[in-house]
Protein backbone atom coordinates (compact mmCIF):
# COMPACT_ATOMS: atom_id res chain seq x y z
CA UNK A 1 0.00 0.00 0.00
CA UNK A 2 1.41 3.37 -0.98
CA UNK A 3 -0.71 6.31 0.15
CA UNK A 4 -1.20 9.61 -1.63
CA UNK A 5 0.99 11.25 1.01
CA UNK A 6 3.74 8.70 0.34
CA UNK A 7 3.59 9.45 -3.39
CA UNK A 8 3.77 13.20 -2.66
CA UNK A 9 6.81 12.69 -0.46
CA UNK A 10 8.53 10.39 -2.94
CA UNK A 11 7.84 12.92 -5.70
CA UNK A 12 9.66 15.55 -3.66
CA UNK A 13 12.61 13.19 -3.06
CA UNK A 14 12.76 12.43 -6.79
CA UNK A 15 12.48 16.15 -7.68
CA UNK A 16 9.43 15.41 -9.78
CA UNK A 17 6.41 17.69 -9.50
CA UNK A 18 3.21 15.67 -9.63
CA UNK A 19 -0.32 16.96 -10.20
CA UNK A 20 -3.18 15.98 -7.87
CA UNK A 21 -4.47 13.55 -10.50
CA UNK A 22 -1.05 12.00 -11.01
CA UNK A 23 -0.67 11.47 -7.26
CA UNK A 24 -4.04 9.77 -7.07
CA UNK A 25 -3.45 7.52 -10.08
CA UNK A 26 0.09 6.59 -9.01
CA UNK A 27 -1.02 5.75 -5.48
CA UNK A 28 -3.66 3.38 -6.82
CA UNK A 29 -1.52 1.79 -9.54
CA UNK A 30 1.59 1.36 -7.44
CA UNK A 31 -0.34 -0.07 -4.47
CA UNK A 32 -1.67 -2.69 -6.83
CA UNK A 33 1.77 -3.45 -8.26
CA UNK A 34 3.48 -3.51 -4.85
CA UNK A 35 0.88 -5.91 -3.46
CA UNK A 36 1.97 -8.35 -6.12
CA UNK A 37 5.68 -7.57 -5.67
CA UNK A 38 5.51 -8.11 -1.90
CA UNK A 39 5.28 -11.84 -2.56
CA UNK A 40 9.08 -11.91 -2.46
CA UNK A 41 8.98 -11.07 1.25
CA UNK A 42 7.96 -14.70 1.87
CA UNK A 43 11.26 -15.99 0.52
CA UNK A 44 14.04 -16.89 2.94
CA UNK A 45 17.13 -14.87 2.02
CA UNK A 46 18.93 -14.97 5.35
CA UNK A 47 22.66 -14.56 4.81
CA UNK A 48 22.35 -14.28 1.01
CA UNK A 49 24.72 -11.76 -0.52
CA UNK A 50 22.86 -9.33 -2.81
CA UNK A 51 23.76 -9.83 -6.48
CA UNK A 52 24.60 -6.63 -8.32
CA UNK A 53 26.68 -7.48 -11.42
CA UNK A 54 25.22 -10.64 -12.95
CA UNK A 55 28.14 -12.15 -14.88
CA UNK A 56 31.69 -12.84 -13.72
CA UNK A 57 33.76 -9.94 -14.91
CA UNK A 58 37.24 -9.18 -13.61
CA UNK A 59 37.82 -5.69 -12.27
CA UNK A 60 40.06 -3.79 -14.65
CA UNK A 61 42.28 -1.22 -13.04
CA UNK A 62 44.04 1.41 -15.09
CA UNK A 63 46.22 4.44 -14.57
CA UNK A 64 44.26 7.52 -13.59
CA UNK A 65 45.34 9.69 -16.48
CA UNK A 66 43.76 12.86 -17.77
CA UNK A 67 42.68 12.40 -21.38
CA UNK A 68 40.62 14.95 -23.24
CA UNK A 69 38.31 13.13 -25.61
CA UNK A 70 35.61 15.71 -26.22
CA UNK A 71 36.18 19.46 -26.30
CA UNK A 72 34.47 21.32 -23.41
CA UNK A 73 32.62 23.55 -25.90
CA UNK A 74 31.00 20.46 -27.41
CA UNK A 75 30.04 19.13 -23.98
CA UNK A 76 28.24 22.30 -22.94
CA UNK A 77 26.64 22.83 -26.36
CA UNK A 78 23.41 21.12 -25.24
CA UNK A 79 23.00 23.23 -22.08
CA UNK A 80 19.70 25.14 -21.96
CA UNK A 81 21.54 28.15 -20.48
CA UNK A 82 25.24 28.73 -20.27
CA UNK A 83 27.88 31.36 -19.78
CA UNK A 84 31.06 30.51 -21.64
CA UNK A 85 31.82 26.94 -20.69
CA UNK A 86 29.77 27.12 -17.49
CA UNK A 87 26.21 25.94 -16.86
CA UNK A 88 23.85 28.65 -15.66
CA UNK A 89 21.41 27.93 -12.83
CA UNK A 90 19.20 30.13 -10.62
CA UNK A 91 20.84 31.38 -7.39
CA UNK A 92 21.31 28.44 -5.00
CA UNK A 93 22.45 30.28 -1.87
Amino acid sequence: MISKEDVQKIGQLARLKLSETEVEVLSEQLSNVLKHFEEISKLDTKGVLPLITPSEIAVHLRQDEVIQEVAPEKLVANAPEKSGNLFKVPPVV
Partner: protein
Amino acid sequence: MLNLKENNVDLIKASAHEIAQAVKSQKITAEQVTQFYLQRIEKLDKEINAFISINPKAIEEAKAVDAKIKAGQTVGTLAGVPVAVKDLLCTEGLKTTAASKILENFIPPYNATVVQNLKNQDAVVLGKTSLDEFAMGSSNETSAFGTVKNPWNPNYVPGGSSGGSGAALASRMAVLAVGTDTGGSIRQPAHFCGVYGIKPTYGRVSRYGIVAYASSLDQAGPMAHSTQDCALMLEAMAGQCRHDNTTSDLKVPEWSKNLNDQVKGLKIGLPKEYFAAQNDEDTKKVIDAAIAKLKSMGAEFVEVEIPLVKYAVPIYYLIATSEASSNLARYDGVRFGHRTDMMANKAKGIDELYSLSRAEGFGPEVKRRIILGTYALSSGYYDAYYQKACQVRRLLRDQFLDAFKKCDVMLNPVTMSPAFKIGERVKSVLEMYMNDIFTTSTNLTGLPGMSVPCGFSKNGLPIGVQLTAKHFDEQTIFNVSYALEKHLEKEVRTPHVI
Protein backbone atom coordinates in the same frame (compact mmCIF):
# COMPACT_ATOMS: atom_id res chain seq x y z
CA MET B 1 13.27 3.81 -57.03
CA LEU B 2 16.15 1.55 -58.02
CA ASN B 3 15.54 -1.84 -59.49
CA LEU B 4 15.13 -4.49 -56.85
CA LYS B 5 17.72 -6.56 -58.61
CA GLU B 6 20.34 -3.90 -59.07
CA ASN B 7 23.29 -5.64 -60.74
CA ASN B 8 21.99 -9.04 -59.68
CA VAL B 9 21.83 -8.08 -56.01
CA ASP B 10 18.31 -8.47 -54.70
CA LEU B 11 18.53 -5.64 -52.21
CA ILE B 12 15.26 -6.40 -50.49
CA LYS B 13 16.31 -9.92 -49.61
CA ALA B 14 20.07 -9.70 -49.45
CA SER B 15 21.78 -10.50 -46.16
CA ALA B 16 24.27 -8.12 -44.57
CA HIS B 17 27.04 -10.50 -45.55
CA GLU B 18 25.90 -10.53 -49.19
CA ILE B 19 25.57 -6.76 -49.34
CA ALA B 20 29.04 -6.27 -47.86
CA GLN B 21 30.49 -8.72 -50.40
CA ALA B 22 28.70 -7.02 -53.31
CA VAL B 23 29.88 -3.59 -52.15
CA LYS B 24 33.46 -4.79 -51.66
CA SER B 25 33.56 -6.42 -55.09
CA GLN B 26 32.04 -3.23 -56.58
CA LYS B 27 29.01 -5.06 -57.99
CA ILE B 28 27.03 -2.29 -56.37
CA THR B 29 28.00 0.86 -54.50
CA ALA B 30 27.31 1.59 -50.85
CA GLU B 31 25.67 4.77 -52.10
CA GLN B 32 23.18 2.79 -54.22
CA VAL B 33 22.36 0.50 -51.32
CA THR B 34 21.85 3.44 -48.95
CA GLN B 35 19.74 5.28 -51.52
CA PHE B 36 17.55 2.23 -51.99
CA TYR B 37 16.90 1.92 -48.25
CA LEU B 38 16.34 5.65 -47.74
CA GLN B 39 13.72 5.51 -50.49
CA ARG B 40 12.00 2.60 -48.77
CA ILE B 41 11.90 4.55 -45.52
CA GLU B 42 10.50 7.56 -47.36
CA LYS B 43 7.78 5.41 -48.89
CA LEU B 44 6.85 3.18 -45.96
CA ASP B 45 7.59 4.94 -42.71
CA LYS B 46 4.56 7.23 -42.87
CA GLU B 47 2.53 4.12 -42.11
CA ILE B 48 4.93 2.27 -39.77
CA ASN B 49 6.47 5.21 -37.83
CA ALA B 50 9.59 3.18 -36.98
CA PHE B 51 12.09 6.05 -37.31
CA ILE B 52 12.39 9.13 -35.12
CA SER B 53 15.07 10.68 -37.31
CA ILE B 54 16.95 9.97 -40.50
CA ASN B 55 20.70 10.46 -40.74
CA PRO B 56 21.13 13.40 -43.15
CA LYS B 57 24.72 12.31 -43.73
CA ALA B 58 23.89 8.70 -44.67
CA ILE B 59 24.65 9.19 -48.37
CA GLU B 60 27.84 11.07 -47.58
CA GLU B 61 28.96 8.26 -45.25
CA ALA B 62 28.14 5.64 -47.89
CA LYS B 63 30.18 7.58 -50.47
CA ALA B 64 33.13 7.57 -48.09
CA VAL B 65 32.95 3.75 -47.93
CA ASP B 66 32.87 3.61 -51.76
CA ALA B 67 35.86 5.96 -51.95
CA LYS B 68 37.86 3.70 -49.63
CA ILE B 69 37.09 0.70 -51.83
CA LYS B 70 37.98 2.57 -55.02
CA ALA B 71 41.27 3.64 -53.44
CA GLY B 72 42.05 -0.01 -52.74
CA GLN B 73 41.86 0.37 -48.96
CA THR B 74 40.70 -2.45 -46.71
CA VAL B 75 37.09 -2.12 -45.60
CA GLY B 76 35.20 -3.73 -42.73
CA THR B 77 32.92 -6.74 -42.47
CA LEU B 78 29.81 -4.55 -42.79
CA ALA B 79 30.96 -2.41 -45.72
CA GLY B 80 28.00 -0.41 -46.98
CA VAL B 81 25.43 -2.32 -44.92
CA PRO B 82 22.52 -0.05 -43.90
CA VAL B 83 21.91 -0.16 -40.15
CA ALA B 84 19.07 1.31 -38.12
CA VAL B 85 20.09 2.36 -34.60
CA LYS B 86 17.73 2.47 -31.65
CA ASP B 87 17.36 6.09 -30.57
CA LEU B 88 18.79 5.19 -27.17
CA LEU B 89 22.38 5.09 -28.45
CA CYS B 90 24.36 8.28 -28.80
CA THR B 91 25.25 9.22 -32.37
CA GLU B 92 27.66 12.10 -32.77
CA GLY B 93 25.96 15.09 -34.35
CA LEU B 94 22.70 13.18 -34.81
CA LYS B 95 19.76 13.80 -32.48
CA THR B 96 19.31 11.15 -29.76
CA THR B 97 15.98 11.41 -27.96
CA ALA B 98 15.40 8.13 -26.06
CA ALA B 99 11.85 8.74 -27.41
CA SER B 100 11.40 11.33 -24.65
CA LYS B 101 10.38 14.98 -24.75
CA ILE B 102 13.09 15.65 -22.20
CA LEU B 103 15.79 14.82 -24.79
CA GLU B 104 13.84 16.06 -27.82
CA ASN B 105 16.69 18.31 -29.00
CA PHE B 106 19.70 16.51 -27.59
CA ILE B 107 22.63 16.21 -30.01
CA PRO B 108 25.35 13.95 -28.57
CA PRO B 109 28.96 15.12 -28.81
CA TYR B 110 30.21 11.54 -29.25
CA ASN B 111 29.26 8.10 -30.54
CA ALA B 112 28.27 5.19 -28.31
CA THR B 113 31.00 2.52 -28.49
CA VAL B 114 28.56 0.16 -30.24
CA VAL B 115 27.83 2.76 -32.92
CA GLN B 116 31.53 3.52 -33.34
CA ASN B 117 32.32 -0.20 -33.59
CA LEU B 118 29.73 -0.64 -36.37
CA LYS B 119 31.11 2.40 -38.19
CA ASN B 120 34.62 0.98 -37.82
CA GLN B 121 33.34 -1.98 -39.87
CA ASP B 122 32.02 0.52 -42.47
CA ALA B 123 28.30 0.05 -41.76
CA VAL B 124 26.11 3.02 -42.75
CA VAL B 125 23.71 4.44 -40.13
CA LEU B 126 20.36 5.14 -41.84
CA GLY B 127 18.61 6.71 -38.90
CA LYS B 128 17.37 6.35 -35.36
CA THR B 129 14.49 4.06 -34.49
CA SER B 130 11.67 4.61 -32.05
CA LEU B 131 11.31 2.87 -28.70
CA ASP B 132 9.31 3.04 -25.54
CA GLU B 133 10.36 6.22 -23.71
CA PHE B 134 13.77 5.54 -22.10
CA ALA B 135 13.26 1.86 -23.11
CA MET B 136 10.55 1.57 -20.44
CA GLY B 137 7.79 -0.48 -21.97
CA SER B 138 6.89 -3.64 -23.83
CA SER B 139 4.79 -2.26 -26.67
CA ASN B 140 6.33 0.96 -28.00
CA GLU B 141 3.21 2.78 -26.89
CA THR B 142 5.11 4.95 -24.40
CA SER B 143 7.23 6.67 -27.09
CA ALA B 144 6.76 10.46 -27.00
CA PHE B 145 6.74 10.38 -30.81
CA GLY B 146 3.80 8.11 -31.49
CA THR B 147 3.17 4.38 -31.45
CA VAL B 148 5.08 2.24 -33.94
CA LYS B 149 2.91 -0.10 -36.03
CA ASN B 150 3.65 -3.78 -36.48
CA PRO B 151 4.35 -4.27 -40.22
CA TRP B 152 2.58 -7.65 -40.09
CA ASN B 153 -0.64 -5.96 -39.03
CA PRO B 154 -0.79 -2.23 -38.29
CA ASN B 155 -3.45 -2.74 -35.59
CA TYR B 156 -0.91 -4.60 -33.48
CA VAL B 157 2.08 -3.40 -31.45
CA PRO B 158 5.60 -4.20 -32.68
CA GLY B 159 6.65 -5.00 -29.11
CA GLY B 160 9.12 -3.07 -27.08
CA SER B 161 11.14 -1.43 -26.19
CA SER B 162 13.16 -1.92 -29.42
CA GLY B 163 9.91 -1.89 -31.43
CA GLY B 164 11.15 0.65 -33.97
CA SER B 165 14.16 -1.54 -34.75
CA GLY B 166 11.96 -4.65 -35.06
CA ALA B 167 9.43 -2.88 -37.30
CA ALA B 168 12.16 -1.29 -39.47
CA LEU B 169 13.61 -4.75 -40.11
CA ALA B 170 10.29 -6.53 -40.69
CA SER B 171 9.33 -3.93 -43.31
CA ARG B 172 12.84 -4.02 -44.79
CA MET B 173 13.65 -0.42 -44.11
CA ALA B 174 17.03 -1.63 -42.84
CA VAL B 175 19.24 -4.69 -43.21
CA LEU B 176 20.44 -4.71 -39.61
CA ALA B 177 19.16 -2.95 -36.52
CA VAL B 178 20.66 -2.23 -33.11
CA GLY B 179 18.44 -2.97 -30.15
CA THR B 180 18.95 -2.85 -26.40
CA ASP B 181 17.51 -5.28 -23.89
CA THR B 182 16.96 -4.56 -20.19
CA GLY B 183 14.10 -7.00 -19.55
CA GLY B 184 13.31 -8.42 -22.98
CA SER B 185 13.51 -5.35 -25.20
CA ILE B 186 15.34 -7.10 -28.06
CA ARG B 187 13.82 -10.57 -27.78
CA GLN B 188 10.15 -9.60 -27.42
CA PRO B 189 9.99 -7.17 -30.41
CA ALA B 190 12.04 -9.66 -32.49
CA HIS B 191 9.39 -12.28 -31.62
CA PHE B 192 6.49 -9.89 -32.40
CA CYS B 193 8.08 -8.74 -35.69
CA GLY B 194 9.36 -12.08 -36.98
CA VAL B 195 13.09 -11.31 -36.92
CA TYR B 196 16.18 -12.65 -35.11
CA GLY B 197 17.44 -10.79 -32.06
CA ILE B 198 20.00 -11.64 -29.39
CA LYS B 199 20.73 -10.12 -26.02
CA PRO B 200 24.36 -11.05 -25.43
CA THR B 201 25.86 -12.00 -22.07
CA TYR B 202 26.07 -9.05 -19.68
CA GLY B 203 29.55 -7.60 -20.24
CA ARG B 204 29.89 -8.75 -23.85
CA VAL B 205 28.98 -5.35 -25.30
CA SER B 206 29.90 -1.88 -24.07
CA ARG B 207 27.17 0.27 -22.55
CA TYR B 208 29.15 3.49 -23.09
CA GLY B 209 27.02 6.11 -24.82
CA ILE B 210 23.78 4.20 -24.37
CA VAL B 211 21.19 6.21 -22.46
CA ALA B 212 21.11 4.29 -19.18
CA TYR B 213 17.91 2.72 -17.89
CA ALA B 214 19.05 -0.02 -15.46
CA SER B 215 22.82 -0.37 -15.64
CA SER B 216 23.13 -3.88 -14.18
CA LEU B 217 20.60 -5.21 -16.74
CA ASP B 218 21.10 -3.15 -19.93
CA GLN B 219 22.84 -4.79 -22.91
CA ALA B 220 22.82 -3.80 -26.57
CA GLY B 221 22.51 -6.50 -29.21
CA PRO B 222 21.87 -7.18 -32.87
CA MET B 223 18.53 -7.64 -34.63
CA ALA B 224 18.60 -9.09 -38.14
CA HIS B 225 17.00 -11.32 -40.77
CA SER B 226 19.19 -14.33 -40.16
CA THR B 227 21.32 -16.11 -37.60
CA GLN B 228 24.45 -15.42 -39.60
CA ASP B 229 23.72 -11.69 -39.81
CA CYS B 230 23.12 -11.55 -36.05
CA ALA B 231 26.42 -13.32 -35.44
CA LEU B 232 28.29 -11.11 -37.89
CA MET B 233 26.81 -7.97 -36.37
CA LEU B 234 27.56 -9.03 -32.80
CA GLU B 235 31.19 -9.67 -33.77
CA ALA B 236 31.36 -6.01 -34.81
CA MET B 237 29.54 -4.70 -31.72
CA ALA B 238 31.23 -6.71 -28.96
CA GLY B 239 34.50 -6.35 -27.11
CA GLN B 240 36.17 -4.77 -24.14
CA CYS B 241 35.76 -1.02 -23.85
CA ARG B 242 37.88 1.31 -21.79
CA HIS B 243 34.82 3.46 -21.10
CA ASP B 244 32.79 0.62 -19.57
CA ASN B 245 34.45 -1.25 -16.74
CA THR B 246 31.81 -4.00 -16.82
CA THR B 247 32.87 -5.18 -20.30
CA SER B 248 34.62 -8.53 -20.38
CA ASP B 249 38.18 -8.95 -21.64
CA LEU B 250 37.31 -12.29 -23.26
CA LYS B 251 38.25 -12.48 -26.93
CA VAL B 252 35.28 -11.97 -29.25
CA PRO B 253 34.75 -15.31 -31.04
CA GLU B 254 34.10 -15.60 -34.78
CA TRP B 255 30.55 -16.81 -34.22
CA SER B 256 29.48 -16.35 -37.85
CA LYS B 257 32.33 -18.50 -39.19
CA ASN B 258 31.79 -21.20 -36.56
CA LEU B 259 28.06 -21.69 -37.16
CA ASN B 260 27.11 -25.36 -36.95
CA ASP B 261 23.59 -26.59 -37.68
CA GLN B 262 24.23 -30.09 -36.28
CA VAL B 263 22.54 -30.47 -32.91
CA LYS B 264 23.05 -34.22 -32.41
CA GLY B 265 23.78 -34.96 -28.77
CA LEU B 266 23.10 -31.39 -27.68
CA LYS B 267 21.18 -31.26 -24.39
CA ILE B 268 18.28 -28.83 -24.52
CA GLY B 269 16.52 -27.93 -21.29
CA LEU B 270 12.81 -27.19 -21.12
CA PRO B 271 12.12 -25.07 -18.02
CA LYS B 272 9.06 -26.65 -16.43
CA GLU B 273 7.69 -23.36 -15.10
CA TYR B 274 7.65 -21.72 -18.55
CA PHE B 275 5.65 -24.59 -19.99
CA ALA B 276 3.18 -24.63 -17.09
CA ALA B 277 2.20 -21.01 -17.88
CA GLN B 278 -0.94 -20.16 -19.81
CA ASN B 279 0.67 -20.07 -23.22
CA ASP B 280 -1.78 -19.68 -26.07
CA GLU B 281 -2.46 -22.48 -28.55
CA ASP B 282 -0.58 -20.92 -31.48
CA THR B 283 2.51 -20.40 -29.32
CA LYS B 284 2.38 -23.98 -28.05
CA LYS B 285 2.10 -25.31 -31.60
CA VAL B 286 5.13 -23.37 -32.81
CA ILE B 287 7.23 -24.35 -29.77
CA ASP B 288 6.23 -28.02 -30.15
CA ALA B 289 7.19 -28.01 -33.83
CA ALA B 290 10.61 -26.53 -33.00
CA ILE B 291 11.15 -29.16 -30.30
CA ALA B 292 10.06 -31.97 -32.63
CA LYS B 293 12.44 -30.78 -35.35
CA LEU B 294 15.45 -30.56 -33.03
CA LYS B 295 14.58 -33.95 -31.55
CA SER B 296 14.46 -35.48 -35.03
CA MET B 297 17.93 -34.06 -35.62
CA GLY B 298 19.28 -35.86 -32.56
CA ALA B 299 19.07 -33.24 -29.81
CA GLU B 300 18.21 -34.57 -26.35
CA PHE B 301 15.55 -32.83 -24.31
CA VAL B 302 15.52 -32.67 -20.52
CA GLU B 303 13.10 -31.00 -18.17
CA VAL B 304 14.71 -28.45 -15.84
CA GLU B 305 13.28 -26.64 -12.84
CA ILE B 306 13.79 -23.00 -11.92
CA PRO B 307 11.09 -22.43 -9.30
CA LEU B 308 12.12 -18.83 -8.62
CA VAL B 309 11.23 -17.61 -12.13
CA LYS B 310 7.74 -16.96 -10.85
CA TYR B 311 9.29 -14.04 -8.92
CA ALA B 312 11.26 -12.72 -11.91
CA VAL B 313 8.83 -9.89 -12.67
CA PRO B 314 8.79 -8.49 -9.11
CA ILE B 315 12.59 -8.78 -8.76
CA TYR B 316 13.10 -7.21 -12.17
CA TYR B 317 10.78 -4.26 -11.62
CA LEU B 318 12.14 -3.52 -8.14
CA ILE B 319 15.75 -3.57 -9.34
CA ALA B 320 15.17 -1.91 -12.73
CA THR B 321 13.11 0.95 -11.33
CA SER B 322 15.57 1.51 -8.46
CA GLU B 323 18.45 1.79 -10.90
CA ALA B 324 16.33 3.93 -13.24
CA SER B 325 15.40 6.38 -10.50
CA SER B 326 19.10 6.92 -9.87
CA ASN B 327 20.15 6.98 -13.55
CA LEU B 328 17.42 9.42 -14.53
CA ALA B 329 18.43 11.89 -11.82
CA ARG B 330 20.79 13.38 -14.42
CA TYR B 331 17.87 14.94 -16.32
CA ASP B 332 17.76 18.12 -14.31
CA GLY B 333 17.33 20.86 -16.91
CA VAL B 334 20.86 22.11 -16.27
CA ARG B 335 23.44 20.38 -18.45
CA PHE B 336 21.31 19.11 -21.33
CA GLY B 337 17.71 18.31 -22.11
CA HIS B 338 14.50 20.20 -21.47
CA ARG B 339 14.43 23.11 -19.01
CA THR B 340 11.20 24.63 -17.76
CA ASP B 341 10.37 28.22 -18.62
CA MET B 342 11.09 29.74 -15.18
CA MET B 343 9.46 33.09 -15.97
CA ALA B 344 6.26 31.70 -17.47
CA ASN B 345 5.84 29.25 -14.59
CA LYS B 346 6.79 31.82 -11.95
CA ALA B 347 9.27 29.21 -10.72
CA LYS B 348 11.80 30.08 -8.06
CA GLY B 349 15.08 28.44 -7.15
CA ILE B 350 16.95 25.37 -8.22
CA ASP B 351 14.50 22.83 -6.73
CA GLU B 352 11.59 24.15 -8.77
CA LEU B 353 13.82 24.22 -11.83
CA TYR B 354 14.51 20.51 -11.34
CA SER B 355 11.03 19.34 -10.45
CA LEU B 356 9.21 21.33 -13.15
CA SER B 357 11.71 20.49 -15.92
CA ARG B 358 11.35 16.81 -15.06
CA ALA B 359 7.56 16.98 -14.73
CA GLU B 360 7.27 18.55 -18.19
CA GLY B 361 9.88 16.35 -19.85
CA PHE B 362 9.03 12.83 -18.69
CA GLY B 363 6.00 10.82 -19.83
CA PRO B 364 3.65 8.85 -17.53
CA GLU B 365 5.45 5.47 -17.63
CA VAL B 366 8.83 7.04 -16.85
CA LYS B 367 7.31 8.98 -13.95
CA ARG B 368 5.70 5.81 -12.65
CA ARG B 369 9.03 3.98 -12.67
CA ILE B 370 10.94 6.85 -11.08
CA ILE B 371 8.41 6.98 -8.25
CA LEU B 372 8.41 3.20 -7.79
CA GLY B 373 12.22 3.08 -7.81
CA THR B 374 12.65 6.02 -5.47
CA TYR B 375 10.17 4.36 -3.11
CA ALA B 376 12.03 1.01 -3.24
CA LEU B 377 15.29 2.81 -2.36
CA SER B 378 13.88 5.13 0.26
CA SER B 379 14.68 4.93 3.94
CA GLY B 380 12.57 2.26 5.64
CA TYR B 381 11.84 0.37 2.42
CA TYR B 382 15.35 -0.27 1.05
CA ASP B 383 15.82 -3.58 2.91
CA ALA B 384 12.35 -4.90 2.09
CA TYR B 385 12.39 -4.02 -1.58
CA TYR B 386 15.72 -3.25 -3.25
CA GLN B 387 18.01 -5.30 -1.03
CA LYS B 388 15.58 -8.20 -0.88
CA ALA B 389 15.21 -8.21 -4.67
CA CYS B 390 19.03 -8.29 -5.10
CA GLN B 391 19.23 -11.27 -2.72
CA VAL B 392 16.53 -13.19 -4.58
CA ARG B 393 18.35 -12.25 -7.78
CA ARG B 394 21.38 -14.24 -6.58
CA LEU B 395 19.19 -17.24 -5.69
CA LEU B 396 17.56 -17.04 -9.12
CA ARG B 397 20.96 -16.99 -10.83
CA ASP B 398 22.09 -19.98 -8.75
CA GLN B 399 19.00 -21.92 -9.86
CA PHE B 400 19.74 -21.12 -13.51
CA LEU B 401 23.39 -22.17 -13.14
CA ASP B 402 22.24 -25.41 -11.46
CA ALA B 403 19.80 -26.08 -14.30
CA PHE B 404 22.63 -25.55 -16.79
CA LYS B 405 24.46 -28.50 -15.20
CA LYS B 406 21.82 -30.65 -16.89
CA CYS B 407 21.68 -28.94 -20.29
CA ASP B 408 23.65 -26.84 -22.79
CA VAL B 409 20.87 -24.51 -23.80
CA MET B 410 17.26 -23.84 -22.78
CA LEU B 411 14.29 -23.47 -25.10
CA ASN B 412 10.97 -21.84 -24.20
CA PRO B 413 8.43 -19.23 -25.39
CA VAL B 414 9.44 -15.55 -25.54
CA THR B 415 6.04 -14.43 -24.30
CA MET B 416 2.79 -16.28 -23.72
CA SER B 417 1.28 -15.07 -27.00
CA PRO B 418 2.17 -13.25 -30.22
CA ALA B 419 1.77 -9.45 -30.59
CA PHE B 420 -1.24 -7.87 -28.90
CA LYS B 421 -3.43 -5.07 -30.23
CA ILE B 422 -2.47 -1.41 -29.85
CA GLY B 423 -4.22 -0.08 -26.73
CA GLU B 424 -5.14 -3.54 -25.44
CA ARG B 425 -2.92 -3.53 -22.36
CA VAL B 426 -2.33 0.14 -21.59
CA LYS B 427 -5.00 0.23 -18.89
CA SER B 428 -3.52 -2.41 -16.62
CA VAL B 429 0.00 -1.61 -15.45
CA LEU B 430 0.44 -5.04 -13.86
CA GLU B 431 -0.76 -6.88 -16.97
CA MET B 432 1.73 -4.95 -19.11
CA TYR B 433 4.54 -5.73 -16.63
CA MET B 434 3.59 -9.44 -16.51
CA ASN B 435 4.14 -9.57 -20.27
CA ASP B 436 7.87 -9.72 -19.41
CA ILE B 437 7.60 -12.92 -17.37
CA PHE B 438 9.76 -15.12 -19.65
CA THR B 439 12.33 -12.52 -20.62
CA THR B 440 13.41 -10.69 -17.45
CA SER B 441 15.29 -13.62 -15.84
CA THR B 442 17.85 -13.54 -18.63
CA ASN B 443 18.80 -9.97 -17.72
CA LEU B 444 18.72 -10.58 -13.97
CA THR B 445 21.12 -13.52 -14.39
CA GLY B 446 23.25 -11.89 -17.11
CA LEU B 447 22.79 -14.91 -19.42
CA PRO B 448 22.63 -14.57 -23.22
CA GLY B 449 19.19 -15.04 -24.79
CA MET B 450 17.87 -15.01 -28.33
CA SER B 451 14.54 -14.90 -30.11
CA VAL B 452 14.35 -17.05 -33.25
CA PRO B 453 11.36 -16.72 -35.62
CA CYS B 454 9.78 -20.19 -35.93
CA GLY B 455 6.23 -19.79 -37.18
CA PHE B 456 2.96 -17.87 -37.28
CA SER B 457 -0.29 -17.64 -35.42
CA LYS B 458 -3.58 -18.47 -37.15
CA ASN B 459 -4.10 -14.79 -37.89
CA GLY B 460 -0.66 -14.39 -39.47
CA LEU B 461 1.41 -12.89 -36.65
CA PRO B 462 5.00 -14.12 -36.19
CA ILE B 463 5.98 -16.30 -33.25
CA GLY B 464 9.54 -16.73 -31.99
CA VAL B 465 11.24 -19.25 -29.77
CA GLN B 466 13.58 -18.16 -27.00
CA LEU B 467 16.98 -19.77 -26.48
CA THR B 468 19.13 -19.17 -23.41
CA ALA B 469 22.69 -20.41 -22.82
CA LYS B 470 25.44 -20.19 -20.21
CA HIS B 471 27.37 -16.97 -19.69
CA PHE B 472 29.49 -16.11 -22.76
CA ASP B 473 28.24 -19.15 -24.71
CA GLU B 474 26.50 -17.25 -27.51
CA GLN B 475 27.88 -19.84 -29.98
CA THR B 476 25.54 -22.60 -28.76
CA ILE B 477 22.56 -20.27 -29.10
CA PHE B 478 23.60 -19.29 -32.62
CA ASN B 479 24.04 -22.96 -33.58
CA VAL B 480 20.54 -23.95 -32.41
CA SER B 481 19.10 -20.87 -34.09
CA TYR B 482 20.94 -21.81 -37.28
CA ALA B 483 19.59 -25.37 -37.11
CA LEU B 484 16.03 -24.06 -36.75
CA GLU B 485 16.54 -21.51 -39.51
CA LYS B 486 17.85 -24.12 -41.95
CA HIS B 487 15.75 -27.14 -41.11
CA LEU B 488 12.42 -26.16 -39.55
CA GLU B 489 9.70 -26.16 -42.19
CA LYS B 490 7.53 -23.10 -41.81
CA GLU B 491 5.06 -21.12 -43.85
CA VAL B 492 6.60 -18.53 -46.13
CA ARG B 493 4.93 -15.26 -45.31
CA THR B 494 5.95 -11.63 -45.71
CA PRO B 495 4.35 -8.46 -44.38
CA HIS B 496 2.26 -6.58 -46.95
CA VAL B 497 4.87 -3.80 -47.17
CA ILE B 498 7.48 -6.09 -48.74
